[in-house]
């Protein structure tokens, strides 16, 4: 499965991390996703769409490039969610 695929009902932490890795690199992306997941009291390896959106919202509060990447990823995930619900 493509780690960047956002179409599933549940999203793994790896999938979320892959969204940010293109701009931040794998290590930093993994670090911020795992930290935010933990801070929200969530556990992987997979999250619901809403939980994933919450994780990205948490990361989006980070100043600078990290927060901007997360906001863009969150926008993409929201669009993917709308697209998925329209297909149902």
């Amino acid at each position: 499965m493509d780690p960047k695929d956002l179409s599933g009902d549940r999203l793994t932490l790896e999938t979320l991390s892959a969204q940010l890795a293109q701009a931040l690199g794998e290590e930093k992306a993994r670090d911020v996703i795992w930290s935010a997941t933990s801070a929200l009291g969530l556990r992987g390896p997979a999250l619901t769409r809403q939980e994933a959106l919450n994780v990205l919202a948490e990361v989006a509060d980070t100043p600078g490039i990290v927060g901007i990447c997360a906001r863009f990823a969150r926008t993409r995930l929201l669009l993917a969610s709308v697209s998925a619900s329209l297909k149902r």
Partner: protein
Amino acid sequence: MTSVVTASARGDAQSAGKDLAEQLVSKLGGETPALVFVFASTQQPLDALLPPIIERFAGATVLSASTAGEFTEETVSKGAAVAVAIAGDYEIRAGMADGLAANAEAAIAEAFGNVPESLDGYAYRTGVMLLDPLSGNGEEATLLAASMMATESSIRLVGGAAGDDLAMKATHVGMGSRVASDAIIVAAIFSKKPLGIGVCHGHEALNDERMTVTKSDGATVFELDGRPAWEVWKERTREVAAAVGINVDAIPADELGGFLLRYQAGLASGSELKLRAPLSLGEDGSLSFASGIPQGSVIRLTKSTPQRQVHSAVKAAERACEQLESEPAGAVVFDCICRNLILAEKFDDAVSRISKALGGTPLAGFETYGEIALDVGDMTGFHNSTTVVLAFPS
């Protein structure tokens, strides 16, 4: 039907501007361009160069950038100016804002103020961005712009970061007669056929060694693995640089910018490396990049070879052509200055091969400090050491 024509000129800026305008008028044969790009060395200040062009093409959107080198399908130059005019069934909307370093979000919002989401009768919108990379907000601006376009199913952005002939002091972008540094331009090309976008870079990891960014602030990296960034950079590149005749401990000031662009940082992303080019060296041994590098990032140093540089440039042109529904009419090329540095006198050959891959059609472009390309599904849009080709259909 699209017409793409190019021109190049040198001499004093005012005369060069007139020369560019006259060449374009002559080649257009009575057609009126919708869009004109002007790319000029710092020896051709845009303020002096642009007036004759703006006067001649009053109905067109004229976008400009200072460069680290400029070229057309016929000429590769330094210290000169080139222009490309695109005529056909296109509508252009553009905006410009400054203050990019202090508040990228506000600058993007202001630049987007005049850019509508859609235009009746035009099925496709392609975003073009020109920006000052010394603001340190290259990736940030690109992702913010993409976010503003995210209501569409397919976001497509291309562009380039201005240069200043490797001085790394001040770069400029312009829209019409307004020219500024610390600024960004966002333009939308509305078209009835899809434009082609091709992207490819030619760098690879220097070795398997990884370094962690242990102290950074925005786009400035102070420490790698707990030591001054420049000390580590020199240490890790000493051997490979010596092999091409560079002594990292005695780099002349006017060659430092070029050195930094040869050996760039690579962030791991799957099987790819996302390249980040250092643009300047601080007195404290820090390195400043064109985009934010957060603390905790893990980087590898990268290098390239002349063969890979030529191959990647041609690949970008081929990919752009593949996206067109008809033969190419011409192209605008945003090409990293590092390709020119690595290829030296063979750079002409790379431009010729890009042109050949585009069917020998007219093209113009410039040597950038960063390249912008974000297509459907991409989560990053600001690149380094990359060739970005924007091809127009016939």
